[in-house]
């Protein structure tokens, strides 16, 4: 069978392309996607896997074919062809990689912009009216109304339940810090923000402080402090990252996002979790012998679950905890909200009333001493 070599080469090329495309889409190398940025980054990676597979197969193919086809025959002491170069061919294999690389650079730039890398200050006032985000969350009805949530334009997201609202009074809008001489400088920017102009008053800020060897997450709005990061799905989080001792880094593989925590220089990371689940939070910068053990979890949950968690945390850290019997999310009177438990505990309502006042007196006594 004497098939012309140009045809076999073409078939090989087609096969190589098909294999590369398949590998690019089916490599199965990445973990599950749990943030809005993840699919964009995975798309970029898949493209690069396709190109890389193709290139590798091409190079390996040429080497293997050459080794078989052009192996010196025993007894042949002659030289090969005196071919020193071929300018058109060299131009071709310079320009094609240049075009590929340019394409990848543009694609990467696109993805980077889309995940907010260039505009961490998306939420600046210049971007216009605050948007009213509709709550897609279920279970919004559980929450008791906010004491002061009737303000105009304020969202009534579940996360605000029992908190003073999400206006970022404590958070620093635009990531700006004041210098001593009154001028401002910006916090080193991070990535993860999905454009779609967020209003500073709606920013969901969490402080993440890394130290040897744990993360401490503080929710400024509600005052909750925790070792695990709880976030509601579907809402952009602004993580203000800091470090207390050495350099750490905050990384969640399923989010595809990472940011170093540098002592003395706050950094920020924005992400929008969009898949309920528990994912590891891994320290990704050598911080000492226990660097490998410095890990915790990010729990992306429904807004209702998140609200419940916040409540629990607030109660758990409140004074007089030792007297607590149950969580009171709706500020009802003690005998009202404890009523459901009364039967189970076999307690009479009058006893509750008495306990409650005893507890109050005791806590006052404690705080006075």
């Amino acid at each position, binding site marked *: 069978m004497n098939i012309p070599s140009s045809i076999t080469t073409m078939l090989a090329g087609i096969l190589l392309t098909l294999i590369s495309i398949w590998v690019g889409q089916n490599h199965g190398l990445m973990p599950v996607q749990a943030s809005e940025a993840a699919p964009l980054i995975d798309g970029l990676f898949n493209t690069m896997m396709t190109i890389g597979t193709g*290139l590798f197969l091409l190079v390996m193919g*040429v080497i293997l074919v050459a080794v078989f086809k052009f192996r010196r025959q025993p007894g042949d002491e002659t030289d090969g062809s005196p*071919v020193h*170069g071929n300018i058109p061919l060299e131009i071709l294999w310079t320009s094609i990689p240049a075009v590929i690389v340019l394409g990848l650079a543009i694609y990467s730039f696109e993805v980077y912009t889309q995940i907010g890398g260039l505009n961490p200050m998306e939420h600046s006032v210049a971007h216009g009216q605050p948007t009213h985000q509709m709550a897609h969350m279920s279970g919004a009805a559980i929450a008791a109304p906010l004491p002061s949530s009737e303000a105009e334009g304020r969202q009534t997201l579940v996360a605000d339940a029992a908190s003073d609202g999400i206006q970022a009074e404590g958070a620093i809008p635009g990531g700006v810090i004041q210098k001593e001489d009154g001028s401002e400088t910006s916090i080193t920017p991070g990535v993860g923000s999905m454009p779609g102009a967020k209003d500073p008053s709606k920013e969901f800020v969490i402080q993440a402080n890394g130290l040897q060897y744990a993360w401490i997450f503080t929710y400024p709005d509600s005052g909750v402090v925790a070792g695990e990061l709880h976030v509601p799905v579907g809402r952009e989080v602004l993580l203000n990252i800091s470090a207390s001792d050495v350099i750490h880094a905050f990384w969640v593989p399923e989010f595809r996002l990472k940011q*170093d925590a540098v002592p003395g220089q706050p950094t920020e990371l924005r992400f929008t979790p969009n898949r309920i689940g528990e994912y590891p939070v891994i320290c*990704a910068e*050598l911080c000492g*012998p226990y660097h490998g053990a410095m890990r915790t979890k990010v729990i992306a949950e429904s807004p209702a679950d998140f609200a419940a968690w916040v409540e629990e945390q607030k109660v758990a850290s409140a004074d007089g905890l030792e007297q607590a019997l149950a969580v009171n999310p709706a500020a009802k009177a003690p005998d009202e909200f404890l009523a459901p438990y009364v039967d189970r505990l076999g307690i009479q309502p009058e006893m509750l009333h008495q306990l409650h006042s005893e507890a109050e007196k005791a806590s006052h006594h404690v705080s006075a001493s």
Partner: protein
Amino acid sequence: MTQAQLQETANLPAHGSEPSGNHWRTYFSFSTDHKVIGIQYLVTTFIFYLIGGALATAVRTELATPEVDFVSREVYNSLFTVHATVMIFLWIVPATTGGFGNYLVPLLIGARDMAFPRLNALAFWMIPPAGILLLSSFFVGAPGAGWTSYPPLSLVTDQAGEAIWILSVLLLGTSSILAAINFIVTIFKMRIAGMGFNQMPLFCWAMLATSTLALLATPVLAGALILLAFDLLVGTAFFNPAGGGNPIVYQHMFWFYSHPAVYIMILPVFGMISEILPVHARKPIFGYKAIAYSSLAICFLGLIVWAHHMFTSGTPPWLRMFFMITTMVIAVPTGIKVFSWLATIWGGKIRLNSAMLFALGFLSMFVIGGISGVMVAAVPFDIHVHDTYFIVAHIHYVLFGGSVFGLYAGFYHWFPKMTGRMLNETWGQVHFWLNLVGFNLAFLPMHKLGLEGMNRRIAEYEPRFAFLNLICSIGAYILAVSTIPFIVNVIWSWMYGPKAGDNPWKGLTLEWMTSSPPPVENFDADPVLATGPYDYGFGDRATPVNVMFSDSRDPALAAGPNSALRADPDPAVAVSPDDRV
């Protein structure tokens, strides 16, 4: 007559006539002979390679299981810190530049020795004490902040070891700078009369680019380490935020050197491959000028990409984009080389001896490393994989798959010239296959480990990564074992191997035009270039090869003898009868 015969005949008067070869004691002395120094470098650095490899084996032993069960966490951190430092500063950099660079450059350009032989010896003799100093840090608590030694961590852990590390690296950096000065002057000033820049072998171009990088970048590392030393020993706060300092400034200064360092580690190997492939494929190097100038391009670009190691450090977005672009651009000159090498072997008469196997292995493995390199140049992707095992995979594919395979190719190719004896081929093949298998087992799974969530520099990891890590550790053990056939082969062959003769490979470059090993001043008289360094294939024409896009009627498109890339033949002595008037 063949090209090789033409070159050899022309150089008979220059051929060394004094007895060659050295007493073993010479190699332990302060010799100023570049060949002795070259061999001193090669043997010393290979010993450090074995030490670095032992440290790596210890690391992989710990990582064979998810728990911390082999060494303590502190010791583990020291193991990988010293492993990397040894491999970079005591193996690859000195072996490629000081070892092969010193041995080959004077011979390739027809010189008697380097420009500054005593400086050469001084540069070498800084290596063993600096290496011993570094290893001695294990007695006081070896440094454990990684070979990158980022403050503030490097200021607070293992301070005695850290101080030793700084001093050792300063010494090794100084040695590297002194060697670079020597190469630049030698290559600029000491080529024989007929050898312009465009006639010199490609290894010399590579050494020129490498030395430029070493000259310009290493001093900046010295500055960084001096400031770090002040912070560590005196209590200043250049990089310590507690005192108003900035740890990111250290990162910039460190990587300004350490990125060019990787090009310092690979460019000489690129040069060696350009020498080895034509000889064993009996074909000219394809695209001489492209390969030569791409070395310069890599040298220049290599100086403006450093912050791609800092994409998550908190650098501004515009900075990340700039460095992303420059980093991606470097793929182009590197790609030019790879394709030129492929075109060199295509249509040749390939001999699959050990040197060629390692050269081809280099080509395959380095391409994988290069591909993962372009991937991590993309900022959004790097944000995910920075400081994970994906990076560990990338660096080992370029450093081991690239530099070490290339160094082995160089050993097999030039051992006959250096010692006058041939290495055993069979054991060379065993060495190659063990290396290839062990290397890929050890490092290929690391790509997946990193992508799935395994960060680097950890002694303990999630149990779900246990299986892949075990595979990597097995691969590492195979690599450890693979050094044995090589070491035995070298020792045995050096003493009892068959004599090599002047030119066992029928090469055309000038080192093959004198005895094996060459006499003290290499040549009895200035050698001449009767034929170019890559002019294979003239007297005895081989099978015509169909080169794409070529058209033999048009000089610009002819890939063969009428190509515009050639100078006109001298009718009086032209080898090909067609060119004789």
